[in-house]
């Protein structure tokens, strides 16, 4: 039995320290997932709170053979995010934070260009349909394996792979349009590549 599973058992018995320990182990990942999906810090904090509150009520139903605790928590968070997106449509609000961790060797103009590209990618990810966005968030932004993502999304690995492939193509198309590539040329490339 792994440590997370032991913590879940203790939580079922009302152990406050175990709950706090589990929170410390997973809250950043849950927060990052919610932030990537919603693009809004306040919404992400709300989702995180709802996720851990949901854990209190559903800890007893956790089945270690079905998924690890991390996937179980992400599953709860995903449910909360989708519920919010369905009813609130806040996903176009963007994260306020700036990307400032570029390599020092790049020149100022290169940094500016990179910032623009990163910002465009972030906007494009937020504009993807939900089922494409979540595979990008899990597999690309949170660097989960296809198997882990398939457990969270409750779908086959092949579905994760095909959705991710399609999502990348959609993102590249969006970025071409954003950066002013000649539309007919982009359309031609798109037709050739994705047919």
């Amino acid at each position, binding site marked *: 039995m792994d440590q997370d599973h032991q913590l879940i058992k203790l939580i079922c018995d009302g152990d406050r320290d175990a*709950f706090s320990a589990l929170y410390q182990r997973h809250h950043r990942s849950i927060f990052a997932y919610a932030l990537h999906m919603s693009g809004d810090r306040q919404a992400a904090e709300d989702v995180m709170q709802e996720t*851990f*509150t949901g854990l209190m*009520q559903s800890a007893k139903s956790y089945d270690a053979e079905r998924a690890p605790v991390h996937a179980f928590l992400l599953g709860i968070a995903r449910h909360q995010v989708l519920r919010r997106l369905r009813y609130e449509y806040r996903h176009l609000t963007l*994260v306020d*934070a700036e990307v400032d961790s570029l390599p020092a060797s790049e020149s100022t103009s290169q940094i500016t260009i990179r910032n623009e590209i990163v910002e465009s990618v972030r906007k494009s990810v937020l504009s993807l349909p939900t089922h494409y966005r979540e595979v990008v968030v899990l597999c690309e932004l949170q660097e989960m394996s296809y198997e882990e993502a398939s457990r969270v999304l409750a779908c086959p690995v092949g579905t994760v792979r095909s959705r991710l492939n399609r999502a990348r193509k959609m993102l590249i198309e969006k970025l071409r349009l954003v950066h002013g590539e000649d539309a007919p040329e982009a359309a031609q490339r798109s037709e050739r590549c994705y047919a």
Partner: protein
Amino acid sequence: MKCSEFENQLSLVTELESNDFADREDVIKHAASCRSCATHLQEERSLSRSFGEIGAHIRQLSPSLDVEQRIMKAFDLEHQTTQRYSRGWSRYATAAIAATLFVAGISFALLHHQPQPASQGSNSRDDRLAAAGEIEPPRVPVPATLSTGKLKWRAGAPRSMRNKISRDAGALEVPREIATDFIRINYATPIEPGSQIVRVQLPRSAMSQFGLPVNMDRADQPVKADVIMGIDGVAQAIRFVQ
């Protein structure tokens, strides 16, 4: 490699999990010879790099501290509620079992009850009063605790039980209902013939108002009492029954 094959194999370059290095080499080699595919490969790599930067940046962010406090507070509240809920149920279950046993005991007593002539009843003072249809003014008692430091209980079992006891004199002792002496509540008017005894339940803390000791562990449990009600409806005296 053809451009169409390049498109199919492009994921080998971008997928982090790919270990097929030979195919990767083919893809990169084709991109070096085809300008269009080279651009496409560059776009894919740029996208992957952007993902890495966004992911790394977001991983550095933390939720505000009050979120954790809210969550822990919710946990405390949830746990308290659950404890109270389960404790409440166990209390109800205990009460239900006690009530069932009580009803079973009463039923048993009634089934074995054989009426006896009144003259053969007990010689209890209350029974004599009840038989005469009147009640004499009780003696004004001094609470036993004040005089002896120990409660003085007096027999006051139901008639049926007392009859059975008198029939089976010398038999096994049957638990009886015991009571304190009557304690006057209202000294303004004497207790008149025609007054009635009424059985009531009071909070156990009421005993302390009459100078009787109260077990604080059972302070929330009610206690039975007999109250002498005057013909004007005013309570005249009280005794506590166990």
